[in-house]
């Protein structure tokens, strides 16, 4: 069991290690035991000049996948790189492109092999979600996570990993 500060640092390092997360500027807002909140900021590269109501073709999916995956970091004592097994998203309303997209994800069950997560996406009001998602992740079998990468995410100093 770790504290909020520890999870925040671990999740931020994990996000920053992923080129596609840097490309989209997806940031961690909050991390707690089992739970995270991420944001996708408004950005010119995602704004369509011709479609004003339906912009996030697919990008919402990327955000949800990212948040679900990051939430697993807050449910495990030690960092494990868990591949996604299944992802399911229900879209209830279209996002507007003038506001950032937020996602709150929770890893609500951890078993020996599988992690279960749920997430909701919103813009102005968490009580009016745009989408719900559930996902499952596989835990790697003993030692499958690259040890240097693990050390980096865990925040072991460079001197120790070198």
């Amino acid at each position, binding site marked *: 069991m770790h504290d909020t500060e520890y999870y925040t640092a671990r999740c931020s390092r994990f996000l920053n*290690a*992923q*080129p*596609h*997360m840097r*490309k*989209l500027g997806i940031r961690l807002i909050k991390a707690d035991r089992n739970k995270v909140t991420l944001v996708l900021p408004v950005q010119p*590269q*995602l*704004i*369509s*000049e*011709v*479609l004003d*109501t*339906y*912009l*996030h*073709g*697919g*990008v919402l*999916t*990327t*955000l*949800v*996948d*990212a948040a679900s*995956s990051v939430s697993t970091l807050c449910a495990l004592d030690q960092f494990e*790189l868990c*591949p*996604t*097994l*299944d*992802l*399911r*998203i*229900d*879209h209830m309303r*279209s996002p507007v492109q003038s506001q950032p997209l937020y996602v709150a994800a929770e890893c609500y069950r951890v078993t020996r092999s599988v992690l279960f997560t749920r997430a909701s996406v919103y813009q102005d009001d968490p009580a009016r979600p745009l989408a719900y998602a559930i996902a499952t992740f596989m835990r790697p079998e003993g030692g499958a996570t*690259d040890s240097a*990468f693990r050390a980096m995410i865990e925040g072991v100093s460079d001197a120790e990993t070198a």
Partner: protein
Amino acid sequence: MQKLLELVKQAHACGDYQPLVDLIPYARVLGVQCECYGEEIIFRLPANADNIGNPTIPAIHGGVIASFMELTALFQLTLQLPQPGLAKIIDFSLDYMRAGLDRDTFAICHISRQGRRVGNCSVLAWQERKSRPIAQARAHFLLDNGNPAEIDINPLKS
């Protein structure tokens, strides 16, 4: 004023689907391409350093694969069914089967049922062999059957 329908017609006529793909900003960010072989349309996601999620393998971000497949279904619907506007996604369900390595990825969409309001799609994504898919997906889309909010794609011409 040029409408989506005309853009689709134009794409079919000249075989250049890129203007249609570029309608969605995120498709452009990912680098989605579209190639037509007779009746079959294959979507291609070229290897791109910005699409990496797992730097250790390295592997494409899972969300990128999912979004690419969702966009594949959206474009297939747009190209196959004449509609005045883009279809809206209702739900999306994805099985990841293998890691998507840092190389070109392909996807194909089959529309298994087309109703008056809803289209049922299944999408397959692979890298070197179609018989070894990296992911499969199912999606439902709400079709646009001509409500007043038609999309004006005129600015694309400027």
